[in-house]
């Protein structure tokens, strides 16, 4: 407040522009489209003609999605499996690796590099790289197992194949975040626990883990976001069909290509927005904590 009083008229303009221009960007390109998606979800519109050709049909799209749109429930289920899988395996594994690598061990950097190398690759590229492992005729996995499975194509297994590839990337990311978090933990805490005779796992779970609460929150949110946004890799494999239905791909399917069902696609988009609003709130609380004094 005290700086504001001193602002000259010119400074006032500069400050307004500095915050105003970025704000216009975000509002026009993110918030307005988000609200439009919600509005359009109550309409039927083929996308031709002006806005006056929009029919407003209430909750029909939602009802249709839930009742007569076969891929919807599988997609929801797959997204749930996605988030469940990431929480059960790659997330704890990433945390575990971080705990191991946080100790003073030789070659720690080298190990770290190996684990987070996949983080820098795009998910689309990850999908391609794993194709060499999953291919039915030429893949590494079938050669090792002596099987004849089309890992990306068979609807019974392709979700899991994609999840393993995704987890490969996710683990390194989680490890990085926890490594940074662990560095910030007061070593005195652990020392005190050790003096008290607490075992290493106990020290971690009863002392270190609670201190990491803000990190845990962020990891929770990141994992949910990644699961809900899952798109690139399934789009690369088969455009989100045949066992790989996920909600993000359904939205894209309804707008790209010949059948552009805008109202229907928007209702799917709104469902995504609703789910995401929960973790957005959690994330905002975690990142802006302590600033609202």
């Amino acid at each position, binding site marked *: 407040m005290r*700086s504001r009083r001193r602002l000259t008229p010119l*400074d006032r303009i*500069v*400050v307004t*522009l500095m*915050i105003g*221009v970025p*704000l216009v960007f*975000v509002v026009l*390109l*993110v*918030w*307005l*489209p*988000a609200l*439009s*998606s919600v509005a359009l979800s109550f309409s039927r519109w083929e*996308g031709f003609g002006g806005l006056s050709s929009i029919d407003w049909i209430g909750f029909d799209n939602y009802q249709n999605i839930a009742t007569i749109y076969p891929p919807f429930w599988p997609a929801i289920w797959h997204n749930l499996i996605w988030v469940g899988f990431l929480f059960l395996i790659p997330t704890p594994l990433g945390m575990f*690796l971080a705990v*191991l*690598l946080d100790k003073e061990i030789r*070659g720690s950097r080298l*190990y770290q590099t*190996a684990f987070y*190398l*996949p983080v*820098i690759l*795009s998910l*689309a*590229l990850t999908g*391609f*790289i794993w*194709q*060499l*492992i999953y*291919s039915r005729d*030429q893949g590494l996995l079938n*050669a090792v197992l002596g099987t004849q499975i089309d890992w990306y194509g068979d609807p019974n297994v392709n979700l899991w194949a994609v999840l393993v590839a995704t987890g490969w990337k996710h683990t390194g990311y989680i490890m*990085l975040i926890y*490594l*940074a978090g662990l560095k*910030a933990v007061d070593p005195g805490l652990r020392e005190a626990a050790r003096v008290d005779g607490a075992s290493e796992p106990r020290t971690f779970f009863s002392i270190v883990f609670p201190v990491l609460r803000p990190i845990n929150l*962020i990891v929770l*949110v990141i994992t949910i976001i990644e699961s809900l*946004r899952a*798109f690139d890799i399934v*789009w*690369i494999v088969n455009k989100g069909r045949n066992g790989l239905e996920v*909600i*993000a791909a359904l939205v894209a399917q309804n*707008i*790209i290509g010949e059948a552009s069902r805008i109202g229907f696609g928007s209702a799917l*988009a709104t469902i*995504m*927005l609703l789910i*995401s609003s929960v973790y*957005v709130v959690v994330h905002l609380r975690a*990142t*802006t904590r302590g*600033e609202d004094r």
Partner: protein
Amino acid sequence: MKPRYVLHAFLAVMAVGWLVPLLWGLFNSLRDYDYTGTHGYFSFGGFTFQNYVDAWQRAEFGEKFLNSLYITVPAVVLTLFLSACAGFVLARFSFKLNLTLLGVFVAANLLPPQALLIPVYRAFRELELLNSYTGLILINTAFQMGFCTLVLSNYMKTIPHELYESAEVDGAGVSRQFFTLTLPLVRPALAALTTLQVTWIYNEFFWATVLLQDGDKFPITSSLNNLRGEFFTDYNLLSAGSIIVALPTLLVFFVLQRQFVSGLTLGSTKG
């Protein structure tokens, strides 16, 4: 003390396992398709660079790299500049709405892009931004700004207020404070974010795929599909293509590893 070799053995096995998909790709990208066709993939020999040459030509990677460049460079510069401006105002001045504004930026970064596809697509079509680099640059910027603003404003808050006060005494206006005082001081954060943003925008797949229908304009990440045949796929060729696409990010990663890691963790730990 328990022996350390159990730990090392575990980590080594895991690390090697983690590298297998990449090494397998690298190994086969260097082998002739006919050779692996007759001898199987579990063989040794048939080494050639031809896959790289073929991949480069067939997927028109030269052109696609330029496309990626045209998108990534302006988008990163714009993102960082706008985020630095917004972050500066949020860190330097305390308005009532500070926290709300920060929330508006950060939340925008967390929304699923697919949920905005339809309105953005329609609006871009009306404005003739569809199938243009400008449209893609704008949308990437809008999306990445939230994260960068959060990181930069947190970083800028660590700059002591006295520095600004003495600049004011010297008669420096807000814009001069920003350019000559704040920006130089946040260089480490900017370096970290640049590394990260270059990687992310280069890797961006969704918006590029849906907003650029013209395959000629695709950035390199979206054009790998060109190497996949309709009926049969030459995996050695595809591996070579994947390695080529990964190369710039790998380079950035190995040269600027420290910046990359600190960028990733800045957003999550400092809050």
